[in-house]
């Protein structure tokens, strides 16, 4: 007789008793062959008692043991009496390692969580996140307040280092981006205002738009991407290397060491970056207005100066201070939330940028309304 390469399942039913007889090699590579038949037999047994006969099986492995357990449980769930006979020696010793009753009901863990479970889980995570943010806001406020009271205890060397990274290093890219934004604004404005012969108002649009919205917004987006993410990954790596725990156990405030220098750097450098960005944006608009659309340069400058009141410039700077707190706060918070594992730092970095951007846009919307009613 040639060696059998696939298992076979014979099903015999006689007065209320069904027998499933498996023969041939039953293992991880072959089990699939008798699977549909097995499921069909278990779905409609047409009997009160079921016997699984494995005497003719060979080269059985763990999957054969799992098959045996599966048949047994399914049959019991249908209320059948089950008997298993002819279990090969190696399967018996394998099964002796397992406490059958302790295996939870069939495949429960394999199923994904339900819709309500998922919604509930997400809601409770968001609540916990909001709570963590509130606690953290307290910690930051306390840290900054104590920095004001005891300026000598601030780690100025770290602060200067972060100021360099947050501010000076970001200057070229922020100037370029702002220049292009001014450029785009001028183009957009031209397409509309040209229809009414109001070309000269492009100067107003660009200057006002940069100072009130786009200067602070572009810098905030840039800093969230550059600095917020860097803070999160830096603190995350420290968290994994247990450096943060070391600070805590030495009785050193993490706020003073890790948060305050970063926050001070953002709070001082972001307004400066915004001023540069405003300038670059207006230059971009000027470039298009004067060289592209043939407006007169002195008039362009005159209109720009007219619309730029101190209050308007200041309103943009106030907004950017709020952005600085958000970006620094979220960056540090996410860093401290790092768990173990290789992808942990990547996760918190992404999360720092995404939550940072989300909060920036929310705050921007609030400011738009508030400034409108203040008549700025």
């Amino acid at each position, binding site marked *: 007789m040639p060696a059998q390469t696939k298992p076979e399942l014979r099903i015999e039913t006689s007065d209320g008793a069904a027998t499933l007889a498996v023969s041939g090699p039953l*293992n*991880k*590579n072959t*089990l*699939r062959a008798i*699977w549909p038949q097995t499921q069909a037999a278990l779905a409609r047994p047409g009997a009160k008692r079921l016997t699984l006969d494995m005497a003719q099986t060979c080269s059985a*492995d*763990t*999957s054969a*043991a*799992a*098959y045996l*357990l*599966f048949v047994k449980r399914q049959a019991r769930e249908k209320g059948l009496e089950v008997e298993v006979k002819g279990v090969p020696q*190696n399967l018996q*010793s*394998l099964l*002796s*390692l*397992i*406490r059958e009753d*302790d*295996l*939870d009901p*069939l*495949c429960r*863990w*394999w199923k994904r969580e339900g819709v309500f479970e998922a919604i509930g889980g997400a809601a409770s995570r968001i609540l916990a996140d909001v709570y963590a943010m509130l606690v953290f806001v307290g910690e930051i406020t306390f840290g900054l307040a104590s920095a004001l009271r005891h300026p000598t205890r601030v780690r100025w060397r770290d602060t200067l280092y972060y100021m360099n990274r947050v501010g000076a290093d970001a200057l070229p890219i922020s100037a370029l981006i702002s220049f292009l934004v001014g450029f785009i604004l001028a183009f957009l404005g031209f397409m509309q205002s040209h229809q009414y012969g109001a070309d000269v108002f492009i100067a107003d649009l660009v200057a006002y738009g940069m100072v009130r919205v786009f200067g602070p917004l572009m810098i905030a987006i840039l800093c969230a991407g550059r600095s917020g993410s860097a803070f999160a990954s830096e603190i995350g790596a420290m968290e994994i290397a247990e450096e943060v725990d070391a600070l805590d156990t030495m009785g050193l405030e993490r706020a003073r060491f890790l948060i305050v220098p970063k926050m001070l750097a953002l709070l001082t450098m972001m307004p400066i970056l915004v001023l540069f960005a405003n300038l670059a944006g207006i230059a971009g608009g000027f470039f298009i207005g004067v060289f592209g659309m043939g407006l007169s340069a002195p008039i362009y400058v005159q209109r720009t100066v007219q619309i730029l009141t101190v209050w308007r410039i200041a309103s943009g700077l106030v907004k950017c201070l709020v952005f600085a707190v958000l970006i620094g706060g979220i960056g540090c918070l996410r860093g401290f939330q790092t*768990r*173990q*594992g*290789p*992808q*942990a730092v990547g996760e918190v970095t992404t999360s720092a940028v995404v939550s940072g951007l989300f909060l920036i846009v929310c705050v921007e919307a609030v400011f738009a309304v508030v400034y409108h009613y203040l008549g700025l």
Partner: protein
Amino acid sequence: MTEPIIQVEDFTARYGEALILDHINFQVRRGEIFVVLGGSGCGKSTLLKHMIGLYKPAGGRILINGQDLAKADGAERIQILRTFGVLFQGSGLFGSMSVGENVALPLKEHTTLPPEIIALIVRMKLQMVGLNGFEHHLPSEISGGMKKRAGLARAMALDPDILFFDEPSAGLDPVTSAGLDQLLLKLRASLGTTMVVVTHELPSIYTIADRVIMLDSRKKKIAAEGKPLELRDTHEDPWVRDFFRRQAGPAGGHV
């Protein structure tokens, strides 16, 4: 005795110019627990990494079931790789997957088993290593000893002929480590799995090892081969006897 399942023949390992192991020969027999032993930096882990095919030998060859992993590729290589499982020193669990998914991965990728059976196998393997009910946990949520055991469950998922262990007790407390030793003995007794263990934990060696080889970091050779108690009591080299008695030699030993 039984036939060899792993044959290391005239094997030489190098990192660039540095010679790590120089023309060594040994065999692992089917069903035995074989321990590779030696001080830090003697090339234990290097040897293991060559045996499991991560590196290619600089000379000689390593046969698993008579097949040379370094020369095989494509389907043949996969077929050889499926005959063994590896428990890495840091357990090597994928952090993005739950413990259950980690164990299920090789089953899903390398077999055609239906999901219901895979789920049961995963539970059985986890129960064998004493991790019943931890399927949903992420590796970051369980302790070091549990990670080792979860890694072992994953290494055993495909019922391999051979299990390789790289420093299984590293970073474990003595009790957990002893528990792991008992687990290995139990698995070998019921499944007949061949085990190759790289370690320098003496208590563990006395408990589990059928045979050991001891690597010598100076000569880059095998310093001793045999049963651990015999080596401790009767080996001609005093350095080997001292090592097994956990004593520093007259000159503080050589490491």
